[in-house]
């Protein structure tokens, strides 16, 4: 096992902006001088399917995917998807999730219920699980669509990366007119 590598999983539903968030994260760690690899599956996942993006950084990264059981941080954009990928996490890993439920087809059609005890389940295994109301904080920052950036801010606290690199990456990856809102949203998440 390569213990000098940090393994981050970003999970959620197709269309939630996970790829952009993982791109900002990867850009940040590259700017901070690390080697970085990122992997995800495009294709079917775009049509509302489950999405997982792997970001790994360190001095030298080999595998583009997080080895099973070695995830350090799971960064969930949706509750059920956050649970789905816990199996990739190492015991004692950190889990941060957005307090958002998006119903899958079987729930929409009334065949199954959306499980209602997911936060407790996650906490039972990952005691310092952080549940974030991304939408609400982003609305406070000025745009509910910046929820991903709030979450990114919350994740940033767990990583030893100077703030300047986060802002530089945001500047590069976010359209100029949305930059101010995203900076604010990022800081709100970082202060949680």
């Amino acid at each position, binding site marked *: 096992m390569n213990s000098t590598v940090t393994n981050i999983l970003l999970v959620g539903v197709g269309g939630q902006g996970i790829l952009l968030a993982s791109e900002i994260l990867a850009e940040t760690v590259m700017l901070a001088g690390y080697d970085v*690899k990122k992997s995800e599956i495009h294709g*079917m996942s775009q049509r509302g399917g489950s999405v997982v993006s792997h970001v790994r950084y360190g001095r030298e990264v080999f595998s583009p995917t997080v080895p099973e059981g070695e995830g350090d941080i799971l960064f969930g954009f949706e509750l059920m998807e956050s649970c789905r990928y816990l199996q990739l996490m190492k015991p004692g890993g950190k889990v941060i999730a957005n307090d958002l439920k998006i119903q899958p087809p079987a729930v929409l059609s009334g065949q199954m219920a959306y499980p209602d005890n997911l936060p407790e389940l996650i906490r039972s295994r990952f005691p310092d699980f952080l549940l974030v109301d991304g939408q609400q904080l982003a609305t406070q920052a000025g745009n509910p669509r910046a929820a991903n950036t709030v979450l990114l801010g919350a994740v940033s606290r767990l990583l030893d990366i100077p703030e300047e690199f986060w802002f530089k990456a945001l500047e590069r990856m976010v359209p100029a007119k949305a930059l101010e809102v995203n900076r604010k949203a990022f800081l709100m998440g970082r202060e949680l």
Partner: protein
Amino acid sequence: MKEILSGNEAIARGAFEAGVKVASAYPGTPSTEILENIVAYPGIDASWAPNEKVALEVGIGASFGGGRALVTMKHVGVNVAADPLFTLSYTGVNGGLVLVTADDPEMHSSQNEQDNRNYAKFAKVPMLEPADSRECKEFTRLAFELSERFDTPVMLRTTTRSSHGKSIVELSEPVTGLPEPKLVRNAAKLVMLPGNARVRHPFIEERTRRLAEYGDSAVINRLELRDPTVGVITSGVPYQYVREVLPNVSTLKLGMVHPLPATLIREFAAKVERLFVVEELDPFIEEQVKAMGLTVVGKEILPLCGELSPAIVRRAFAGIGIVGATHALLPPFIPIDLPGRPPNMCPGCPHRGVFFTLNQLKAYVTGDIGCYTLGFMPPLSAMDTCICMGASVGMAAGVAKVVSAEEQQKIVGVIGDSTFLHTGINGLMEMVYNQSPATLIILDNRITAMTGRQDNPASGFTLMDAPTHRIDLALLCSALGVKHVRTIDPFDLAETKSVISEEMNRPEPSVIITDKPCVLVKREGVFEKGVLLEVCEESCVGCRACLKIGCPAIEWLPTDGKKGKSHIDPLLCSGCAVCHQLCKFDAIGRVI
């Protein structure tokens, strides 16, 4: 300068740095983004072809004309392009020609997981396999050099993980001083009649021998000596898995997987005590190493199916005591059985009403490949076969040949616009020529949606976003000799049902074309949102009729026990109003 690029972006960059003049492709996951990214570079004529065979032929023409040409496709695309490929191997090239095959182990978005390394050996052309984005760029550049130096097309094989994975790439300047393209006649080399081809074949065999020799000392075939007790031959992304979980073993990393560098392999084998091959899918390297008379272990401990992962490689080597088991081998933590989240047709997708109708009419649907393949999933559940692009048409004709006259009336082929022009059109010729009683539905949503919205010959625009002639599908079908060509609005369920059932009953070839665009088309004037719909709570009796179309915008809100009411999410609704037509209680109406 350093940038984080996907393998596909890096191949586009590499082609630009190599001075490519022409890039041609048919989209297919995971290869599509190569051409989508190459359009940003100056001086490259980049275009979508109607199918992979044409894409390769465009590339061959450009190469014979003296320009460097890049041709890209997904793994199954090479099946379509195989005919020109095998003879191109005989002619060789003029300007360098590189064919990218993007394989999809694990079938993340494919109908099979064929291992296209076999094509390199079968067609006798060299194949390079990069392991990350940096190599994607470097190998692309090298592939063009090798193509010209050895007078051969070169295949570059990626897999989903290398195509879509991102890593850091150092950018360089484009090459200069390439010869200007011009017409040169050379019949003995370029006209493959038996007499000429017989002369070329020995050249091909000699070329393979020289390439293997090149491989013995090529820097892309890298011998890394660490612990001499265990040696692993590997290539591509599996190399990364080996380095990840077996950091101390010796490796022979092959950048060129065909032809294999026999001398280098023997040298490596002599330096290690136990020899292994770690490769995805087929025992392609393993069998050849065994044929060299060496003792090697590969598929005895590794799977033949699906992609590898660090965990799979770790388990394989832990099983024979070479690496310690870790917590990765403990049963994973899965808290509960979660409902799955399969992909779904979008709200407002014009395919939905057609499949709902086909289900109602109990049609036997020979399906095809595209977003509409999701018509197979419940609750639509209206697809009975799916083989490869274009197959729906010929198969509809074939099924009709063997079943009773009564059952013939049930047979409907369903195909998308892009797929019809790709290889469905030949099937329609069969239907007309041999007077099939089957019915064909062309789902014309004006785009190649499945692979992420690429233009095609019936969309009216090119890859460069330039307006062009839009093939008139109805006219085309009529010109082929179909007497009954009908165009329908797939959002009008009554019309859709009556036209489809009329044509199903007709014992002659007939074609129905749907004319509503894909909701994801961003181009102005194509897709426009309709007036949104809402459920009137008082009128909804909870009969669930509207749930039968599986629209993601309609959700079921349970009240008590089995009872409940429907609700339409205004953020998701696109106003197609198909649900409105299903409600017998007038509970679904337009938002005023």
